[in-house]
């Protein structure tokens, strides 16, 4: 290559050559929180007040993440203030805050970026524009940064992306420097002083923390603490999942076919539901459900609805089997 002797002109010419595209700022915004958290942890490692630093860092981090992600959203195409979710359910204790103003949560309300939801002793559920549903347990504090990113400061959430529409973009939950991303799944995140726990009901979840990236699949659990991340097994059904049913609007099943109720019970309860025999199933395809199931757990709802249909159930392992009401195996 011929280059002019004048190094000033040469450098100018070279620097003005077309170069690879700049790195997408959104990527930097996604990566930064976990790197920052890892750095804070490491930088505090030699200090006796490491724990205090970590706690302070977590508080700063939550704020910084929220600010950064909100800014990122503002830089993107979506107009400022465009709703990213609507409220499916909110008990009277739930408070929404935006632009410094607090108000009681209302069902059907559109939520814009930057909205902070505190459930206090209540519960709430929202659905994102893309159909992903999130439910929040009591004592939860979460900020909706964008449709694809939220900052969990405390409490617990349940994410169900099984009815997502459009592009399969993941939703990132950022909590104390850890990023949780779903890959077509339903899972729970619970944040306490001691740990961040992720339990996967189905599908797969990626958890990226200061200790690296780990994945968990259905029935898996990951716990992130100040000393590391460990994986284990978790039940995908049972009493400690009951809160998710109480954190969303009850299904309108009055007058609906029994199979619709059973599909709801299977989805919410986490256990497969089968008829004991095909003939019994065929006989009940048109059975209509009557009775209210508001505020009932899945198990309680089954025990209310099935007898009214002349049916009963029993549980074998993780599978619920439906039998005729006079079947001795059925729960009375």
């Amino acid at each position, binding site marked *: 290559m011929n280059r002019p002797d004048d190094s000033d002109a040469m*450098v100018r010419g070279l620097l003005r050559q077309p170069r690879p595209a700049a790195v997408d700022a959104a990527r930097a915004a996604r990566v930064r929180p976990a*790197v920052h958290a*890892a750095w804070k942890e490491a930088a505090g490692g030699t200090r006796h007040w490491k724990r205090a630093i970590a706690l302070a860092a977590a508080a700063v981090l939550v704020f910084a993440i929220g600010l950064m992600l909100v800014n990122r959203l503002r830089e993107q195409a979506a107009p400022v203030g465009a709703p990213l979710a609507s409220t499916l359910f909110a008990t009277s204790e739930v408070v929404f805050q935006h632009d410094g103003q607090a108000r009681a949560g209302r069902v059907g309300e559109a939520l814009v970026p930057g909205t902070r939801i505190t459930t206090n002793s209540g519960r709430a559920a929202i659905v994102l524009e893309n159909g992903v549903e999130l439910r929040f347990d009591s004592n939860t504090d979460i900020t909706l940064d964008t449709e694809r990113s939220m900052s969990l400061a405390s409490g617990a959430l349940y994410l169900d992306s099984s009815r997502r529409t459009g592009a399969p973009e993941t939703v990132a939950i950022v909590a104390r420097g850890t990023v949780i991303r779903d890959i077509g799944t339903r899972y729970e995140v619970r944040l306490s002083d001691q740990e961040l726990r992720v339990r996967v009901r189905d599908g797969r979840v990626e958890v990226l923390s200061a200790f690296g990236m780990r994945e968990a699949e259905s029935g898996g659990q990951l716990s992130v603490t100040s000393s590391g991340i460990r994986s284990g097994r978790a039940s995908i059904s049972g009493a400690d999942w009951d809160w998710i049913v109480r954190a969303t609007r009850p299904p309108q099943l009055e007058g609906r076919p029994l199979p619709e109720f059973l599909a709801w019970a299977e989805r919410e309860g986490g256990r497969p539901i089968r008829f004991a025999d095909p003939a019994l199933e065929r006989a009940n395809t048109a059975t209509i459900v009557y009775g209210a199931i508001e505020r009932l757990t899945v198990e309680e709802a089954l025990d209310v609805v099935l007898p009214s249909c002349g049916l009963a159930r029993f549980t074998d392992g993780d599978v619920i089997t439906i039998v005729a009401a006079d079947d001795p195996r059925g729960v009375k």
Partner: protein
Amino acid sequence: MHNGSERELVRRMLDGDENAFDEFFADYFPRLFRFAVLRLRDQDAAEDLVQISLIAGVRNLRSWRGEATLFTWLCTICRREIAAWEKRTSRRITVSLAEDDPGIRAALESIGAAAEAPDAGLARADTGRIVQLVLDHLPPRYSRALEWKYLEDLSVDDIAARLQCTPKAAESLLTRARDAFRDAFAAVESAANEVTS
């Protein structure tokens, strides 16, 4: 010289200086991302692996001794993470790059180690890519100063203000940066030609 500023940056990071972290992330994330994406041809995978690499880097900052530049050291971590990812996922999509040729790599790494001898190695026609590669391997202050001067046409006074130094110091830094860039570009281009000839 620039190793000194990198040492200072690392020292400040180890002291918990937030501004130092900001500088570190702003300087090295884009470089490492370009490094990874060139090899993986998959931006999402590159994002994840760069995140993991940077986390490993900041957690092990004390082990960086300054023999290689900070960027070279981070690239080493990233290469290891890419290899581990390939093994974990049974995927092998990394791309063979001219800059991974030992001669070019040595030249690139020498930019930092010898403080200003650039590197080598890409297709002749890919001048822009060589320019970016050289900039990525120069000390961040050099790269920034060069772009301010030659792309944004900032005056020396403005550059001094941004660098928070005197105009004389800025002028001196610009001279060193320009020489470093010129030499590095020549070395990388030469090595690239050898690889492709």
